[in-house]
């Protein structure tokens, strides 16, 4: 039996916006198993960002429970949750979200600082990861000196720095041209294939979604479809040409 890494049980998220209650998520049940590659797809306003934040343990549900490696995250202290999150989940954001004042090595090292890993070990690891994502020659550059694709590579290296089981990507190709987006997706697919990482990829692009083994479709805060895909080939189809049916 597969090990469940993240489990959402009847999760509701209700926001109060200027007095009116907005139900962003309405009773989500989802399991992510170790080694899964799942895409969450939905139009804007569907609640997928909210869902992403909850899966990433950045927020707590209004109702229902979320389990990270069988621990109810609502029962953890804020600091404990931060610690566990930093160790278990690696984030890749649409806007890269690198720290602009730090260079590539320092950005990749940052999550390790928060885990209390010694400097030498941190630096070796950061250099190794940056080499792995193909940025060996630009390690001492600041984000402002890097292209979009390079920034996202740094972000991926950062996401990997604490060896998390789960990589949570939020529109990782959203700010990139199609060619660069393709290479970033190749990298992410490689993490799943070669290192067995659990990948959760949130996107609105059906083509990008099909890189995953499983697609979860969310509309109006509810899951409408949860199905396995015929996996998107890395070599077929094109980002601009839409999806292969």
């Amino acid at each position: 039996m597969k090990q469940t890494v993240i489990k959402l049980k009847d999760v509701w998220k209700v926001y109060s916006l200027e007095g009116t209650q907005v139900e962003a998520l309405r009773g989500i049940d989802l399991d992510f198993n170790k080694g899964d590659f799942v895409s969450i797809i939905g139009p804007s306003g569907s609640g997928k960002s909210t869902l992403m934040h909850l899966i990433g343990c950045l927020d707590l549900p209004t109702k229902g429970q979320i389990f990270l490696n069988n621990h109810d995250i609502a029962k953890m202290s804020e600091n404990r949750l931060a610690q566990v999150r930093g160790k278990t989940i690696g984030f890749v954001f649409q806007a890269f979200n690198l720290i602009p004042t730090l260079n590539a090595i320092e950005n990749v090292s940052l999550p390790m600082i928060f885990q209390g890993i010694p400097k030498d070990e941190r630096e070796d690891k950061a250099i190794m990861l940056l080499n792995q994502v193909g940025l060996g020659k630009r390690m001492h550059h600041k984000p402002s000196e890097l292209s979009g694709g390079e920034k996202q590579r740094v972000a991926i290296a950062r996401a990997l720095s604490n060896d998390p089981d789960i990589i949570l990507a939020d529109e990782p190709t959203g700010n990139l041209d199609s060619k660069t987006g393709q290479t970033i997706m190749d990298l992410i697919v490689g993490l799943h294939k070669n290192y067995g990482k659990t990948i959760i990829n949130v996107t609105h692009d059906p083509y990008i979604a099909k890189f995953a083994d499983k697609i979860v479709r969310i509309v109006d805060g509810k899951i409408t479809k949860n199905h396995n895909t015929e996996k998107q080939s890395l070599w077929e189809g094109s980002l601009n040409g839409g999806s292969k049916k």
Partner: protein
Amino acid sequence: MIKDYFRISFSAFKSRKLRTGLTLLGVFIGIALLITLMSLGSGLQKFITDQFEQMGSDKLMIMPGSSMFGAPVEGIELTKKDLEIIERTQGIEAVTGAVIKIGAVTYKEETTYTWTLGTPMDTKSWAIFESMSSAFKVEKGRKITDKDTSKVNIGIDVATDKKLFDKGVSLGDKIIIEGKEFEVVGIYGRIGNPQDDSQIYLPIDVARDLFDEPDKYDMIVAQSKTGEDPENVAEKVKKNLRKSRDVKEDEEDFTIQTSEQLLESFGTILAVIQAVLIGLATISLLVGGIGIANTMYTSILERTREIGVMKAIGAKTTDIASLFIIESGLIGLGAGLIGVTIGALISLGIQSAIHLAGYTMLNVNLSLSLLLGGLAFAFVFGIVSGLIPAIKASKMNPVDSLRYE
């Protein structure tokens, strides 16, 4: 860990040089002011303490008027009779008095006005003055005696070029005081305060003739006997003088102060002045502190997304708070470095000015502990100023922070 925070915080400044610089400016002025005032204040304190220590605790100063610091009142004066009464008081070892006047002094057709001190020049009387400052010594020539009716001693500044006179007075020269000619037979060494150094010393009877002041003393100094409590002796003198001058208790028209009391009253005045000045410096620091807090708020607002990212990748609330506290602490430390340096330079500048004015005994007190204390204070001050913004930053919700545009 902490070292990493310092590095991250430091890197944040490099991209905000101007703002950080302006914030520093707001704080270092306060720190510089504080360093200057404290070094000056403790230097002044030491100067005064030294002065009175030299004077000796057995001295009593008796002056006309109800307060030492009040303006002299016409008609209220000390006389020869008062001196005798003091002399006869039990516990008094010796007593001397002085006539202190500003006189017109002419040397080589150049006329100026300066202090003259007329006092008994016999060994016993002079010993009282002499014991008040080790610097009261004739360096060139000889000390005058009461028999020298046309000879004077002069302070070093009278003998120095471009001080009182264009060309300094030399030993053996003639000077005219209030129309009468005197020969300079002795020159004092540097005493270290401008009044004494530019003074002309005369036998008291000569001064009385010169200024037509047959009976009056401007100041009487008495010495209590060894083993007697000067405070006690002072009380006795006070009682006797009250009786002879026919005034009631607490309505005295004269003041007696022991050196201890003088030291205390000077100390009080000094403390009040220092408190006022340090109060001003504190206000300036407070404004600087608000500047730090303001900068930190802006910085945190700008970096809301960064805070969200750091939280997402595992930063605890304490990590975020530490980062920002260190950042504001570094602003404080930077301001401290500049402030302490500038404050010390200002102090040294003031010291040169004071020395130039003749008070060579007065030095500012720039101790290492003051300088290091100033730095430490600045660092802690920065931390305290940034505390509330840092706590605010650490409590930000990661989701809201990540959404922040």
